[in-house]
């Protein structure tokens, strides 16, 4: 039995390690065979990555993108959370606006970017608006779903004890809704990142997305791959943060 589990673990481990190695070797081999402007090898990509880290290009771009992302996400969170609570607790508003929220949620937001550009122009805030548009719907809809599903028993008990309205919000509604909100936050983190790259592409061309575009105009495949690698790491890190937040608050999630 013991030997079997050891062998099994070895097989699992070799699967993961093999997967990484296979990918790395394929990348290296294809990159070496293919012309430089089509695909570049792993070693060239890492060398280029090191280069743009050292000369500060990457740092500047990261900082620019990070600022818009952070501000956009904060706004998306506030608007989504308050909007969701409002829609959940005010039935008239919900009936009136929910269909439009769902239709807008289904809209490919990139299509709106040219209009925003014409209306707001270039700069920091138009980009923030793009990120808000991409990111706030999951927060809104999840918060609404959560706040709406509070069981009447909880509210009843609070009423029986003549709890003040303010305390009902503080001790019942908000804690109950928080785990749902966090599910929305997790989904928003990824969507906001898409918005950030899209804003970098089509509004003022700076940040990580701008770096990608200029690299593609130079046919600098190594730099494009290096930036994509950075974006992948950021994406995975954000997903891990989102998961951790969600799991942390899921402990007191009811239903």
């Amino acid at each position, binding site marked *: 039995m013991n030997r079997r589990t050891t062998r099994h673990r070895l097989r699992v481990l070799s699967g993961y390690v093999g997967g990484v190695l296979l990918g790395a070797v394929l990348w290296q081999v294809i990159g070496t065979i293919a012309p430089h402007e089509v695909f570049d090898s792993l070693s060239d990509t890492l060398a280029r990555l090191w280069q743009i880290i050292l000369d500060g290009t990457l740092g500047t771009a990261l900082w620019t993108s990070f600022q818009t992302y952070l501000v956009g996400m904060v706004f998306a969170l506030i608007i989504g959370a308050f909007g969701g609570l409002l829609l959940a607790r005010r039935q008239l508003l919900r009936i009136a606006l929910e269909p439009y929220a769902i239709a807008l949620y289904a809209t490919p937001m990139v299509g709106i970017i040219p209009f925003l550009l014409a209306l707001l122009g270039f700069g920091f805030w138009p980009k923030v608006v793009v990120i808000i548009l991409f990111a706030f719907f999951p927060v809104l809809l999840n918060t609404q779903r959560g706040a709406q599903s509070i069981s009447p028993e909880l*509210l009843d008990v609070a*009423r029986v004890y003549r709890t003040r309205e303010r305390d009902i919000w503080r001790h019942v509604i908000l804690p109950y809704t928080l785990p749902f909100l966090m599910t929305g936050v997790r989904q928003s983190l990824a969507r906001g990142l898409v918005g950030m790259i899209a804003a970098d*592409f089509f509004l003022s061309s700076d940040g990580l997305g701008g770096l990608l575009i200029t690299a593609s105009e130079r046919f600098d495949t190594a730099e494009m791959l290096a930036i994509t690698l950075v974006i992948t790491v950021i994406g995975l890190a954000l997903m891990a943060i989102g998961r951790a937040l969600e799991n942390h608050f899921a402990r007191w999630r009811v239903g």
Partner: protein
Amino acid sequence: MTTNTKTATRTRIARVSSTPQASTTPSRRKKITLWASAGLGILVVWQVGFTLFAPAYIATPIGAILAIPTVFADPIFFPDVASTLGAVFEGLLIAIVAGTIIGLAMGRLPDVNRVLGMYVGAFYAIPLIAIVPLFTVWFGYTPQARLAMIVLEAVLPIIYNVAEGSRIVSATYLDVTRIHRVAWWRVWTGVVLPNALPYVLAGLDLAIGRALIGAVVAEFVTAIDGLGTYILFNVHSFHQNEAVIALIVVVIFALVIRALINLAVRRGLPWYQPVKEA
């Protein structure tokens, strides 16, 4: 805050109803009136606000309605619609086939999952539109770049859902096939594939929005013919109202396809339980 009190009191009477709001739900007619008046309100605010405070070329509801004949008479509009939506259809078909095969392999064969799982996970986590510049280098400024983008965007949620779904094939079914010494390929076509079908649809539901984003971004970057380019070109030449119509076509397309999928799942596969979203 009085609504809460009201809601809570009323539910005490109608405890049988499942949600607190159920007992106070207004009639269908009242709902539609509310909904329509809210829509009208939004349009009026948009119209008045933009007429007063924005330049004349910014789109307004009345302008967009007036632009409908122009758009439909535009000889390039319908070819552009066909180009984009046709590419999305083609991409979704490729993604369904590829996604089902890869997803089934990952779900049923642990070794495949270990090797591929992290790549699928990584690609699913990143904004794939970041790959568009690379695709323009590989495929040039061509419709192939757009198709590749659509397939890449659409295939990941399908792989993910099918892999998760086919992992939970009922052990009883598999035991029965083993007892009857059913050939392996018949187990796959007869048990594993039908089991995965609803998950293909669930993945497809997530894939459509992503595919449209991929298509529009690819068109924005490459400027090949299509709805995205139609939007971009018209906005840049101060014909925003026409561009709004094109955007609405994209949204309607997305909503109709998603409604069809929901209908198919509810009618054809009522036993299906969705997997937890990635």
